[in-house]
Structure formats: C-alpha cells, structure tokens
C-alpha cells in the first residue's frame, strides 16, 4: 500500500510537479487544466501521466479524449509526493 522509497526515488521532478499540481487541486483535474498549470508540453504531459498511471500513482478517466480526460491522484500518489516534500 505505502509507496516504497525505491519507487519514490525513481520519480522525476516533472512527475512530482504533476502530482503536486493535482494534489493542490483537490487531487483531480481535467487534463487540459493540468496542461495549463503545469507548464509542460501536452505531449510530454501525456507521456508523464501514462507513466504515472502505470506506476499506479494516478488514475485516468476517458483516456482517449483530451477534452474529457480526467486525472486523479491515488493514495500512493499522495504518499509519493509527500515523501519528496
């Protein structure tokens, strides 16, 4: 359940930036809102979010539609972001 130190150490600064942006906004955001706050190019952000989902740090709803896509940080994502504070 808890995020391991190894997993936390593997997270890039951009991953942490994305997780924190989500946490600061109730833990969930539409993808385009995340794109507007994170200052990361849409395509790169898409890849970051996909990797975070693979690591179970975020959950993605409607992944195929950029206008409907919603990203939610999971409990593990919360722990990972807080470990790096």
């Amino acid at each position, binding site marked *: *359940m808890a995020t391991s130190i*190894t997993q936390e150490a593997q997270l890039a600064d951009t991953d942490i930036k994305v997780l924190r942006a989500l946490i600061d*906004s*109730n*833990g*969930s*955001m*539409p993808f*385009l*809102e995340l*794109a*507007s*706050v994170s200052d990361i190019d*849409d*395509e790169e952000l898409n890849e970051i979010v996909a990797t975070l989902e693979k690591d179970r740090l975020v*959950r993605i*709803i409607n992944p195929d539609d*950029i*206008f*409907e896509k*919603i990203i*939610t*940080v*999971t*409990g593990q994502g*919360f722990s990972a972001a807080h470990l790096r504070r």
Partner: protein
Amino acid sequence: MDWNYLYSLVAFVIGGLAGFQGVYERHKKDSPKASTTLAGFSYLLTRALFPSTIFGGLYAAKLVDSKLLITSLACGTGAELFLRTKIFIKQEQKAAGSIEDLLKGPLDLLRWYQNLLLEAASTSLAESKKEFVEKNLPATLGFEELCQRVFTNIDAYDPPPEELKTEVEKLKDEFEAKIDHVAEIAEAAIQGYLTDHPEATREQAIDFASPFVPEVQELAKAGKNGVTDRSKLDQQYRYKLAYIVYRHVGRKGFRTLLSS
C-alpha cells in the same frame, strides 16, 4: 420507540469527525465541497455509522444498559482506535539488504476504503468543473476572441487580477507559437508539392497541403507536434483559457469575464 438509542449519536459524531479528518487531509479548504459529493458523503456516512451501529448492537443485545453516554463515547473512540491499528506480523528482508517490519491490520483496510471513496470524490469535483466549463464557455468564439474578451472584461475587477492577465498573455503567446509551427509545416508541404509538380500553381499546392491532407499530418508527426488541425488546437486552447480563468476567479468570475 426506545429513546436510549439516541445515545448512538455521540458515537455517530465521533465517527463522522474522524472521517472528516481524512477528507480534510486530501481536500483541505474544499473539504465541505468534497463532502457533498456522493462518494464523499457516503464515506462520511459509513464512517459515522460504524461506531454508532456498534453501540446500537451492544444496546440491542442488552450488553450495556447503564452509563450509555460513556458507552457511546467509548464506542466512538474505541472504533477509531481499532480502525487505526496495525499488528506486527514478521520481519522481512528487502532487496537492498535492509530489514523492515511487516505490519498489517484494520488500518490497511481503512486506507483502502478511504482512498477508494475520496478518489471518487476528487474525480467528481473535477467532472463538475469540466461540465461547468463546457456549459458556460461561449461556443461561437475562438481562442483569440475569448482572450480579447477576458482582457476587455478584466477591468470589471478593482484591482484587475494581474496574475490572471499574465497567464492569459503567456497562453496566447504559446498558441501563436504553435500556430506558426503548424504554418511552417504547411509551407514545407506546399513547397514540396511545388517541387514535385512544377506546373502547379501555389493555389493548387495550398489546396493540396491544407492542414487536413495526410502529407501535412505526416509532416506534423515528424515534427512531433501532433496537432495539425487548427480547429482542434483552437479548441484545446479555448479550454485551457477557460480553466485558467476558472482557477483564478471561480464560477461567478468566469461568467463575468467570459460572458458578453
């Protein structure tokens, strides 16, 4: 009706408050809003019902019949203590060579349940924001017209929110840079067509190389832009602008800044 069951309200409140602490940890100042979503409300209700049901059960089974207030308090705090417990199972050797204690208990189940429902509450808040934006973003205006509208209406604020102004200007610059990039790709396609068809006019090449023809799309992919369709790009930036406005001035301000 046995009015003594009302003592269970004490346990109910303790459970509810403990549950709200979990909501607050995740949602901070938006905790009240999160608590009113279906998932958030269900979480609080079940957390509150757990200790009060224990009290009700004990009373119904006649295991307690005096000092009911104290019993209800004990049920509330006892249930919380139980839910936050972890028991030592064994020591485990980790790959790095370190040894860690393996602890399991009701706390794992509580965390799982809390994450499940509070994640759903978070998603529900984001969905509600998305629906608001979809409903209130003027459908007939393009991104640049919307920016113009924001700049015109922003003076309604005294003082005007400078941070919002800066962010909108930055977004506008980003949009223009992307459009220029797409234009460069289109120009490359036009020039490519003219080289392959020396007899063709530029108009014919433009027709050929409009952003929707496969060659231009392939060029765009090669340039890792991924967006060749100007209207889609425009739509994406309309939404980005809407979310920036929403974040700075909320729902009421959103209507003020983006309505005619």
